[in-house]
């Protein structure tokens, strides 16, 4: 069975997540061989619509689509043209007119991918919307953890940083809790959103307690401009209280993995030693990102019916 859209990990089942992870394993095998391409999405058109600057995620999706033999196009949408009065509805009409099969969208406003998915015939993949979700990042984080730890259920995972403004945190929380991990969020109390514990996570504002004995630390990027909004007094103080360095890392389990969705502020939320240390899987996250996105595109791009034709 194939599904039509990927808006968030909130909406998909544990089984769907597991299917994506299994397929991603096969695709990782594909991208590690000399010829990194399979013909699955031949003839399909995939468009990257990024209303927010991003090199990493866009490139990852583009590679994933191309390695599935899809025709991948990047629609560079200058935010200025949107300001000039091109409405989202115009965007919808443009997409429809271009006969696109899959739209990958990144937008600064929460809810835009869902909005699009209700109005266009194409499939929609959310590449990050506002503060809402970034499902493929969540999936690649989970895939990376699973690859290293062999399981997700029962693991203690600490997400550290600006939880409030993080779509990565939300997708991780949904995905990890569905697969049975024990998730903690750790950050300054001004950056912990209201009632987040109702999502099934434990909240810590003391980083040393928060990362004690955890199996995984996922460190979020801190947007330096948040300081101007009085969410924390100085960058220096943030680094002192919440930056993960070698000393703090010792509080976690000895084999604790360190993840970061990138791009990193070295020396602020993560010390260079930790970023480049033996427990860091940050580079592998990037490789895995392509495999996971191939799995998502593969599942969304094909399969009109449910029936199995294994011969």
């Amino acid at each position, binding site marked *: *069975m*194939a599904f039509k859209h990927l808006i968030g990990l909130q909406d998909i089942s544990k089984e769907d997540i597991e*299917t994506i992870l*299994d*397929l991603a*394993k*096969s*695709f990782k*095998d*594909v991208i590690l*061989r*000399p*010829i990194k*391409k*399979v*013909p*699955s*999405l031949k003839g399909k058109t995939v468009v990257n619509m990024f209303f927010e600057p991003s090199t990493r995620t866009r490139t990852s999706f583009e590679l994933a689509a191309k390695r*599935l033999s899809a025709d991948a196009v990047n629609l560079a949408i200058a935010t200025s043209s949107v300001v000039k009065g091109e409405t989202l509805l115009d965007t919808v009409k443009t997409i429809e007119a271009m006969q696109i099969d899959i739209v990958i969208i990144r937008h600064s406003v929460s809810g835009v991918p869902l909005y699009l998915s209700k109005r266009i015939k194409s499939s929609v993949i959310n590449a990050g919307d506002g503060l809402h979700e970034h499902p493929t990042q969540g999936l690649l984080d989970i895939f990376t953890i699973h690859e290293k730890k062999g399981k997700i259920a029962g693991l203690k995972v600490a997400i550290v940083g600006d939880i409030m403004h993080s779509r990565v945190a939300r997708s991780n929380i949904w995905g990890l809790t569905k697969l049975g991990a024990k998730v903690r969020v750790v950050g300054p109390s001004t950056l912990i959103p209201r009632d987040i514990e109702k999502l099934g996570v434990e909240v810590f504002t003391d980083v040393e307690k928060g990362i004690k004995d955890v199996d995984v630390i996922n460190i979020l990027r801190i947007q330096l401009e948040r300081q101007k909004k009085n969410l924390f007094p100085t960058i220096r103080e943030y680094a002192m209280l919440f930056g993960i360095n070698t000393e703090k890392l010792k509080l976690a389990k000895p084999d604790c993995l360190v993840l970061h969705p990138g791009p990193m502020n070295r020396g602020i939320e993560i010390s260079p030693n930790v970023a480049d240390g033996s427990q860091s899987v940050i580079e592998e996250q990037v490789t895995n990102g392509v495999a996971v996105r191939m799995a998502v595109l*593969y*599942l969304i*791009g*094909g*399969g*009109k*019916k*449910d*029936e*199995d*034709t*294994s*011969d």
Partner: protein
Amino acid sequence: MDKDLKIKSEIMDKDAISRALMRIAHEIVEKNKGAKNIAIVGIKKRGDILAERIAENIKKIEGVSVPVGAIDITFYRDDYSISAKREATTTELNFNIDDRDIILVDDVLFTGRSARAAMEVLIEYGRPKTIQLAVLVDRGHRELPIQANYVGKNVPTNKNEEIVFELGEEDKVYLAEKKGGK
């Protein structure tokens, strides 16, 4: 086993399968004038099990170990737009296939589409000298111009029938019918 299938008759028992695989091994060696340049590649899932057995047989006959590989064709299927498989495994080809005589092995030859996809995978990995096809059962109904070089047994079938395998302790091949004419 698929519960929508009803067993009609047994096609091959353990001995028959074993004899067929031995005969195929002999034919491969004979046709390729020995086993020096051969590699056996099974199409997952099941072709890889048969490939191992054929390789064992060749070792018995010629005394040489031939390289054995397995390929997963999930991402190469041409019925992808009709049905996206939710499961895939990995391709294991840990030897250079350039200029080798590759024996592709599958359990059943039916429409020919799996064999076509398998050839596509092989070609991505290199340029074999030849690609030959060995199947345990040929049930007819080809949709592509593909023919097996080595056949265990020809079994005339209807399109609504299925070939069912049990490979393990008690190897068996059955002919089954889809229930309710689905």
